[in-house]
């Protein structure tokens, strides 16, 4: 047990180092982009070099890169104050800075966006796993038959139809042209405000996102099953006289679980960084839209925060997968 604890704390230590490196790199990259952050602070008035120069000093963009990074790190652990006098703003730790374009502390913005993205990601994950694994199994079981052909068609449509178009088609046919539709044309309702509204606001986005992923998973699960079917231990299972159902449902699927969980874990982690197109078409204020708008507006504090966060999620998910693996694969459990 102490070995496991040591393993976990070592993993956490490495994770923190990775995150420091990630944050430093992200900060470095954005400091050397050909944008002058000061010239983004005055809008139309930025034709006036005097205003730009004054803002550069007042907002600390004149300081060297490492000093700005240090201030950022300190803010992360101790919070950070912006402005002075009546305009003073304090962003409590962990402070990722303040967005003057959103008039809010970045941490608050991220805190608002994450529940939306998690709602979207979890629902669609469930949906696409059910669809993808189900269709993949059917396609593999009836390899070469009509069901296989149909699932191939589904894969083709799902992988080639852009998410944006899928979403738009759903909105047009299930909202705009459907007076009976219980679904809103977009927007997000918090579950603590209205749980039914939350569900209804997410059904179409879930389907949209799951559609694309389910296609990929169908193809993946089908090929995994076909590959595992040629394994010696599957022949052993048959030789034992097990029924085809047990061979497929138990022996084959158990072996396919590890690659599917890995893929789902990483896809899920990627989604937590934001599903930009789905969030955009369905007007869901999640991480994807936060990141996208930050990029469009060149809102550096948000870009830095969302980039670091996306990296963190992937790093954490890898750690989780390592632990989950120990449960799935007895060979990892030593």
């Amino acid at each position, binding site marked *: 047990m102490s070995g496991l604890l040591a393993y976990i704390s070592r993993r956490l230590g490495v994770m923190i180092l990775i995150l420091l490196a990630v944050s430093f790199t992200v900060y470095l990259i954005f400091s050397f982009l*050909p944008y002058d952050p000061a*010239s983004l*602070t*005055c*809008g*139309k*008035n930025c*034709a*006036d070099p005097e*205003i730009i120069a*004054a*803002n550069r000093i*007042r*907002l600390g963009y004149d300081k060297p890169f490492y000093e700005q990074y240090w201030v950022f790190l300190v803010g992360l652990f101790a919070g950070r104050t*912006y*402005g*002075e*006098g*009546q*305009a*003073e*703003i304090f962003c409590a730790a962990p402070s990722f800075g*303040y967005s*003057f374009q*959103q*008039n*809010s502390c970045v941490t608050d913005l991220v805190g*608002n*966006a994450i529940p939306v993205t998690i709602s979207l990601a979890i629902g669609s994950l469930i949906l696409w796993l059910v669809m993808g694994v189900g269709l993949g199994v059917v396609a593999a079981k009836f390899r070469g038959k009509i069901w296989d052909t149909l699932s191939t068609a589904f894969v083709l449509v799902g992988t080639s139809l852009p998410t944006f178009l899928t*979403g*738009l088609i759903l*909105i*047009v046919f299930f*909202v*705009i*042209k459907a007076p009976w539709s219980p679904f809103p*044309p*977009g*927007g*997000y309702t918090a579950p603590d405000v209205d749980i039914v509204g939350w569900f209804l606001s997410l059904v179409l986005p879930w389907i949209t996102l799951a559609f694309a992923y389910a296609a990929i998973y169908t193809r993946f699960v089908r090929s995994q099953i076909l590959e595992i079917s040629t394994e010696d231990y599957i022949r052993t299972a048959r030789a034992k006289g097990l029924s085809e159902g047990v061979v497929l449902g138990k022996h084959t699927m158990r072996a396919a679980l590890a690659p599917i969980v890995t893929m789902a874990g990483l896809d899920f982690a990627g989604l937590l960084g934001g599903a930009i197109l789905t969030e*955009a*078409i*369905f*007007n869901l*204020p999640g991480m994807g*839209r*936060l990141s996208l*708008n930050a990029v469009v507006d*060149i809102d550096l504090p948000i870009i830095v925060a969302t980039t670091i966060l996306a990296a963190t999620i992937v790093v954490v998910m890898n750690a989780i997968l390592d632990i989950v693996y120990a449960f799935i694969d007895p060979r990892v459990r030593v």
Partner: protein
Amino acid sequence: MLKGKKSLKVAVATLSAAVLAGGLLTGCAPANTGGTLTYLTNSEGWTHADPNRNYTGLHIAWFGSYMHRTLTAYDRKAGAEGSTVVPDLATDTGRASNGNKTWEFTLRDGVTFEDGSAITCEDVKYGVSRTFATDIITDGPTYAIGMLDGTDNYKGPYNTDADNDVASYDKAVTCSEDNKTITFNLRRAVGDFNYTVTYLSFSPVPKAKDTGDGYDLKPVSSGPYKIQSYSKTDSMVLVRNDKWNKSSDPLRAERAFPDKIVVKFGQAEEVRDQLLIADKDKYAVSLDALLPTNQSTVFDADGNPKPEFEGRAINVLDPYVRYAAVNVSKLNCLPIRQAIYYAKDFKGLITLAGGQAFNGDPADGVIKPLMGLDYAKTGYASDDPNWKQEGNVAKAQELMAQAKMDCPELHARVTDPKRGIVYDIADSETNKKASAIWVESLAKAGIVIKFNFIEPGSYYAVVLDPSKQGDLSAAGWGPDWANASTVIPELFTEGAGFPLSQNWNDPAYAEFKKRSDANLAEPDRVKQGKEWAALNKYVMDQMWVIPGTFSKTQEIWGSGIGGAFFWEPQGALSFGDLYLKK
């Protein structure tokens, strides 16, 4: 005693308003009053809701209609009449003295914020002072900084540095003893300062409620509606401001129709258009222009609304003029500039952009006909017998022949296949196609043109740098307010706001500068307008820009919306006049 007098006055005013309102209730009001008006927009929240940070016509029109009052405002009328300035918070449209360098406005009685407290001169003065805090109150127009006298070392109300020259601001803007009359002392004569103060950056802000940047999320209302909730990622909900004094606000008194106003942000553009085209919510209005791909669904080939969209869509001139700015310091030869003007294939370019019906008419200058007082035909473009939509090769060749004699050096460069002239343009697929049309049409006149495609995000940063600007630069400009004082001097004066023309070494500049400066101080608005129109023609005679189009925009709203018209000075719908049809 004084206080009592004032209270009485307020009471009388309130009474008369109540009587008036009662009359309305039994009259036509019930037909139009009440309900929830919904706006749909692709924007992620308002760029700004803080009055001092609002700049664009759309935002001024919206917030000005519902929440933020200013000393003076544009009359909310269709057509050129809308460009007339009328009193709003002030009792009149301002009183100038000292050769237009001192302007005085007196506040009406009974004007209040949403908490019921009276709006005073100090509130207006405080609001204007925020403009100086350029690191926090960003994006808003900075006319106050440029115009107020002696405020060079003033850094706004938040700055706590010892060298923040607060005294200079207190001298530049003063309040009368009764705190009702505000006086602005300007560093130069500004004949149309009462137009300047229509900007929301001259709105009152209660100091006690100011939180700097955070005020952008919860600005205090002085108008008929106040914010109930506002989330940039979701929606803004306005409800009636029960402390709003109808009698103190003749501009909005009989027009604040809906009970509730909702703005839904972040609508995907295609979804937004489809919702409105399908009339899914007949009480919804799009805050954005219709997508070009949906133009033909709503309008016929001539640009008129199809029968099913009659009365709920418009195709109108937007506030912008699109043109190719000429870098006169480089193209310092009039016949060559004129040759480019005649050789250009307007027809090819406008067809590429989607046709004249939706993209605009040929421009005959930099002032748009929308600016009724300042516009007069210049005799160029459609009115020029030598100008042809598809380009007049013969005329252009003739001018190039003359250029060969007048300015042989530049002529040699312009016609040299290895050098030619350089056109700055934002990098896009459409612009790449447009460049081919330019190359082909100018080649017929023997002019070689090369294109410098610039990343759209950094386009203006590049071309506004004189060392990087080419010979021609694609540009568009809309007036800050309905006065060409925000067009002619801004585009063609050295050190002004949008100096792409670099025309200050041109022999014709001296006369231009003299006339333009004089006209800025001209108090007679009609006279001033005529001179702007004359200067517009002067600019064209010098061909300091190659005119492009008076561009257009398409708007759509639900079938249940009444009262809509295009409010010309703001280039937006008359939001404050919209009502829900019963």
